[in-house]
Every structure is written in structure tokens, then in C-alpha cells.
């Protein structure tokens, strides 16, 4: 599904953010990526999502190399990925439903399917009654849930979420992880980045830890094959 081989990232002459990261995510897996703020989690996710180019190393997505792809091909890969951005990146002028519908509209889905999927997803995240509200009027936690609904509304093959539980209380965070597990059971590979190591430990999923640009597998009974 995702394979990073000796990936490094450095901006100009600054310190390297990622040193030599190799990682394989199997199709259908559920993974946590932990690490303190500034450890490089967001950069790693951006590289996987093609929002950033690695300074060195290789990224393979869905079995194919990503280096040298043209813009339409990169856009095509992005449409197969659902993303929850750390800063959410909702469009405040649009309603909650229209924000959630964006990936489907970009994919040219029929309006009826869009309506059905959006209504279903808003119900999943407990915001069915706020569908027409402009997202600029929603609370931080509600916005977070809208961002999550948008990331999974098109049933992506890969879901990457950057601190998706950062703005919600523990109960809602647990609910959101259950939503991710639900989408995972439908076949989506899930990678969740969080600084909250204790929170990630609550679940029986594979965990990788990023520290000073280096990745390690910290899962209980870790499978060394995941990190080369």
C-alpha cells in the first residue's frame, strides 16, 4: 500500500527533519504514528500524501513509484487517499455538508450518491443536524469531526490523519477512533499520527514512533519487517 525507502527530508541548510525513514504499510492495516511535537510526523504524512517531496529516498504508493509523476497522475493518487489535516483545512464559506462532499464532487460522483454518503457520514460523526451550518460557525470539535467525515466520505484506499483527536475530549476521541476502525473494516488502510502516546497505547494497533527524524516500531510484539 505504502512503502518508504530511506526517505529523508531537509529544508535548505536546516537540520534534517527526517533522517532515514523506511516504512511499509500493508493494505488493510491500522497504524498509529506517535512522536512529540516537531518530531516530523506532519512532514512524513505530507510526503505520503504527495504534499511534499522527499529530499532523498523513494516513496511507493499503491504499488507504484511516485517520483517523476506528472500533475494529473499525482492528483489521481491523492484522490485515492483520505486526509485529515492537522489544521483541518476546511472551507469556512461552505456548509458542513458541502465540505464533506468535496472529495466526491472532485471525483465527479453523482449528486444522489453525494447526498447519501454525506448524510451517512455526518450521522457517523454525530453532526447530522448541522449539515447546512457554515463550518465557520462550528466549534473546534465539530470542525474536527467534519474534517474526518470529509477524509472518509469517498471510502479511500488509504486514510492518513494528523492529530485527528487533538481538539476533542477523551470520549469524542475514542468515538473518532471507532469511526476510523469502522472505515478500516471496510478495507481502508489507516495511519493516525498523534503526539499522545498514552492514547495510542489504548488500542491494539501497530504503532510507530518518530523521534529526531528516525522511525522505530514500538508495537507490542512488533513485526520488524515493517521497518526495514
Amino acid at each position: 500500500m505504502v512503502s518508504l525507502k530511506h526517505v529523508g527530508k531537509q529544508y535548505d541548510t536546516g537540520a534534517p527533519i527526517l533522517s532515514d525513514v523506511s516504512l511499509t504499510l500493508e493494505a488493510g492495516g491500522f497504524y498509529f504514528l506517535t512522536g512529540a511535537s516537531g518530531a516530523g510526523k506532519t512532514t512524513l504524512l505530507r510526503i505520503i500524501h504527495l504534499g511534499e517531496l522527499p529530499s532523498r529516498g523513494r516513496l511507493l504508493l499503491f504499488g507504484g513509484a511516485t517520483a517523476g509523476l506528472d500533475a494529473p497522475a499525482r492528483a489521481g493518487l491523492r484522490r485515492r487517499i483520505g486526509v485529515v489535516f492537522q489544521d483541518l483545512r476546511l472551507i469556512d464559506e461552505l456548509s458542513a455538508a458541502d465540505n464533506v462532499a468535496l472529495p466526491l464532487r472532485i471525483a465527479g460522483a453523482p449528486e444522489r450518491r453525494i447526498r447519501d454518503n454525506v448524510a451517512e457520514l455526518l450521522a457517523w460523526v454525530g453532526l447530522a443536524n448541522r449539515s447546512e451550518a457554515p463550518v465557520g460557525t462550528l466549534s473546534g470539535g465539530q470542525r474536527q469531526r467534519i474534517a474526518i467525515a470529509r477524509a472518509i466520505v469517498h471510502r479511500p484506499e488509504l486514510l492518513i490523519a494528523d492529530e485527528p483527536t487533538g481538539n476533542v475530549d477523551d470520549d469524542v476521541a475514542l468515538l473518532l477512533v471507532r469511526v476510523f476502525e469502522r472505515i478500516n473494516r471496510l478495507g481502508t488502510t489507516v495511519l493516525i499520527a498523534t503526539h499522545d502516546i498514552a492514547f495510542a497505547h489504548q488500542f491494539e494497533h501497530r504503532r510507530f514512533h518518530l523521534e529526531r527524524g528516525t522511525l522505530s516500531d514500538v508495537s507490542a510484539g512488533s513485526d520488524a519487517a515493517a521497518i526495514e
Partner: protein
Amino acid sequence: MIGFSFAWAPRNLPLGRDAAWHFLPWVVALMAYLAALGAIGLIVAQATVRATDASFAETMTLQVPADTSNARLETVLAVLRQTKGIADAHLLAPAETARLLEPWLGPKVPLEQLPIPRLIDVRIDPAAPPDLAALRHQLASVVPDARLDDHRASLGRARSAAGRIEIVLSAVIVVALVLIAMSAVYAVRTGLSIQRASIEVVHLLGAPDIDVARQIAMRYLQLGLSGGAIGAAAATLTVVAVGNPGAFLLVPTNAASAATGLADWRFWAVLTGVALTAGLIAMASAAVTVLRWLARMP
């Protein structure tokens, strides 16, 4: 799976909410107005030259010295009427000549006391014009000082003046169209800086650059067309107010009204063409600007 649909385009990006959307149609309207007047002027100039050409091609004027005897005048007329290619020759009466000279000399000048040449208006067959060299030679044998004017000098001056006017009007049109493109690029850049976050989201969610550019370009097509339509309407009002487009060029009324009037299809073609061109230029400028901007994103 991936396709562009007009149905979702306006809802996808929150477009139409920055100041550029308000000023662009008016800037385009002003430029379209100038371009439309320039284009109408071009048509009038070209039609006037054509009409003048046709008019001069069918007539000549023969000047005979004032002291020429009536017998010689009759001989000259006979020569003209017998010449192949000449349809008619008409000796202007002194009163007719006086009317022609009145604008230059005024009504109170006693023309009968002046050595005013006699004028013969000659109409020729444009399909088989006479041999002018032979005709001049023949006329000289009757009246040595007779002067046959085939209007080439006047026509040359008119053509030259019209050519200079056409260059100026063409420059006005080109400048107006370039300014439409520059205004659209400026408006798009302003809009992109304001909507950067929204467009980045759509880009990161996998929208093809061409779809994003097309959506924005279609909106600029609307803006350009509405601006072009406003400019064209203003040009129409100007033409109606002026009454005769030919007045711009100080050309004879009959030639100008034949060239461009509200009943002339070319007038409407120009206005439609200017409005469409304004829309297409705005659309193309927007598309190129957005695509170049998106190409810099990862």
C-alpha cells in the same frame, strides 16, 4: 471516474467574493467600449475609402481655360462623347461652377468677372475605361491648355489619410485588448491570493489542475462577457447619440451611413465580436494564470 461537471463547479470553490469580481467587469467594459469604437471606426474608414474609390473611378473632370470659345467647347464635348469608354460628358453652367466655388470664395465674389475655367463633368464606364493618354493627346490638339483630372491625387491623399487613421484605430483596439488581458491576470492573482487556502484544499484533495483552472476560467468568461456586453451597449448608445459614425472621420455623410449604421450587420458583428473577444481573453488569461500558479504546488 474523474470528470468536470458544471453543476458542481460554482459550489466547489467559494468564488465571487473578493473585490476583483466587482471591478473587473467595469474595467473590461471600458476597454471593450474603446475597442468597439475603434473597430467601428475601422469599418467606416475602410468603407469610406472603398466608396470614394468607386465614386472617383467613375468620374473625371476636364478643366478648360475660361477664354475658350464656345465652338472649341463644343468640339471638346464631341471628342469626349465619341471616345470609347466615356458614358457621358456634361458642361457645367457658370452658375453650377459658382455653386461649387462658393464654399471657398464666399457668396459676394463677382465670379463672372474672374477667369474661372469651364468645367466638364465626365462619367466613364468603369468596366471599359478610356485610354487616358490618347484622350489627353486628342484634347490637347483642340484646347492645348485643357487639364484632365482623373482624381488620382485626391484619391491618394484620401487613402493615405485613411491608412493613418486605420493604424491609430488598430493600435487603440490592440491596447484595449491587451489591457483586458492584463486586468484579468491582475484580478485572478488578487483572487488567488485571497482564495489560496480554499484552492490549496481542493488541490490537495486531488482535484485535477485543469478542473480548478477551468472552473475559475469559466467564471472569468462570465465576467469578461458581461463587461464586454456593457462596453458594446455603451458603444451602441454612443453611435446612436452621434447619429452618424462617419462624423468621427469627417467623411461625406452618404459614404459613412453606407458604411456603418444601426441597420448594418457589420456594426452588430463588431459589437458581438468585441464582447466575445473580451470574454475569451479574460477566460484565457485566467486559465493560464491559474495553471501556472497550480504548477508551482507540489
